[in-house]
């Protein structure tokens, strides 16, 4: 069966980045994103160093730049929003290419573009080198409460089942001549979404019954995560450590 959804993001490999336990990669990714978030917007050079760090990790994982660029398309709506800010921002204005732009809007756009782009790039590298199920196990190993990881696990498990159902409903509608082009034709889509919601609720009840039948008493068993060694932690936290050093330096140099 073909992969779909989140599971399809993983690019199989045997590089050092791939084989690291998920918990150290998740911790490293979160650390790197924090360092980016803490860096002042004026320190352009620091953002260049962050991008270079991520590029080095991606290259050592054997990920092609084109693949990363394609997956970063998820950021496009935020980019569009950021590009609007200099046009609609208030306060002091400046002229760029004969356009009157808000100075605070330009800073806000740059901050969103730089920090969001780097954050998305980190997420893309993590998702491309770590199976989604292991990311959840990694979060659990990092002491994220088990009810949260269980919910994530269920979402991941049933996203494909739900996607299949949506596909089947679409086919059923198309086979009876439904070809929506206008907003007023959306009613069957809304009804099918409602039907899926009810069916998912019923499935939830059946799953709970299957869990109780196997002795579930309110606590999910611990996941069976690959243990991490000191060298794993050292390797995974090196990019984040370097990023924190850059962030600290950027505050001192300003």
């Amino acid at each position, binding site marked *: 069966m073909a992969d779909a959804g989140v599971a399809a993001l993983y690019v199989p490999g045997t590089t050092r980045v791939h084989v690291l336990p998920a918990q150290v990669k998740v911790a490293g990714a979160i650390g790197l994103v924090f360092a980016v978030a803490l860096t002042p917007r004026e320190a352009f050079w620091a953002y260049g160093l962050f991008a270079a760090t991520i590029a080095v990790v991606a290259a050592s994982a054997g990920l092609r730049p084109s693949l990363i660029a394609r997956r970063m398309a998820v950021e496009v709506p935020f980019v569009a929003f950021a590009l609007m800010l200099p046009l609609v921002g208030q306060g002091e204005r400046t002229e760029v290419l004969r356009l009157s732009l808000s100075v605070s809007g330009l800073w806000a756009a740059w901050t969103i573009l730089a920090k969001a782009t780097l954050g998305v790039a980190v997420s893309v590298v993590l998702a491309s080198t770590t199976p989604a199920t292991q990311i959840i196990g990694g979060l659990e190993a990092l002491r994220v409460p088990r009810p949260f990881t269980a919910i994530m*696990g269920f979402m991941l498990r049933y996203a494909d089942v739900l996607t299949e159902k949506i596909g089947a409903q679409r086919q059923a509608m198309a086979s009876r001549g439904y070809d929506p082009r206008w907003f007023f034709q959306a009613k069957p889509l809304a009804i099918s979404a409602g039907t899926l919601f009810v069916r998912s609720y019923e499935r939830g009840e059946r799953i709970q019954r299957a869990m109780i*039948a*196997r002795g579930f008493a309110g606590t999910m068993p611990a996941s069976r995560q690959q243990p991490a060694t000191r060298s794993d932690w050292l390797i995974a936290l090196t990019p984040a450590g370097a990023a924190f050093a850059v962030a600290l330096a950027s505050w001192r140099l300003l």
Partner: protein
Amino acid sequence: MSHHSIVVDDLAYSYPDGTSALTGVSFVLEPGERVALLGANGAGKTTLALHLNGLLTPERGTVRVAGLPVEEPHLMEVRRRVGIVFQDPDDQLFMPTLAEDVAFGPANLGLAGVELERCIDDALDAMGLLELRHRAPHHLSFGQRRRAAVATVLSMRPDILVFDEPTSNMDQAGRREFAEVLETLDVTMLTITHDVSHALRTCPRAIVMSGGRIVADGPTAELLANEQLLAANRHELPYGLGLTPECRRAA
């Protein structure tokens, strides 16, 4: 002291909306017996199965498993002894990987470490799925998912397996392969099915339910030779194939 596997006595149950699903069901299952539970849709077969490990609480009557009443404080032990394999494997396989799903039941029973690993390996091996232990359930074929669902209860080392429509949506070869795997298991089995050939192949005894009660109980071949009984309970032999020699002999 040896016990019957399951003793159901005058079991009655109505759903919260008032629908009466069971109206006084009594039967006994002996250790090692393989029994088919036949009947039309709505006859009460699944409702009966849900009482066997305490997922539903009887309105009247009792259920005992290996001598234990199906109620607190015995529910955990009853659930270890009675494994239910539900109709849709997607309801039963809810963990991210097959190994974690198979580990779910024994981990709830308190098993860990080497003992838990052994349970997982044994269950997956019995179902021919050892190589797929790290696969996500949605990466398995339907037949594999069906066998994986059995592995998730086998890992609890049950004495009794209850199947709800185990061969639905399976092709003929898949049904045969599944039946062959079941034949290797040394447990008591109760199989809810509309698949009369599967019932005949795997279960020497059959119980027929209608309107929430048992209307026939006897050798499967003999019951399948009773055309009136089959017709009254919306069961039919495969079109054009007629009675098997085994059924004809019974008739």
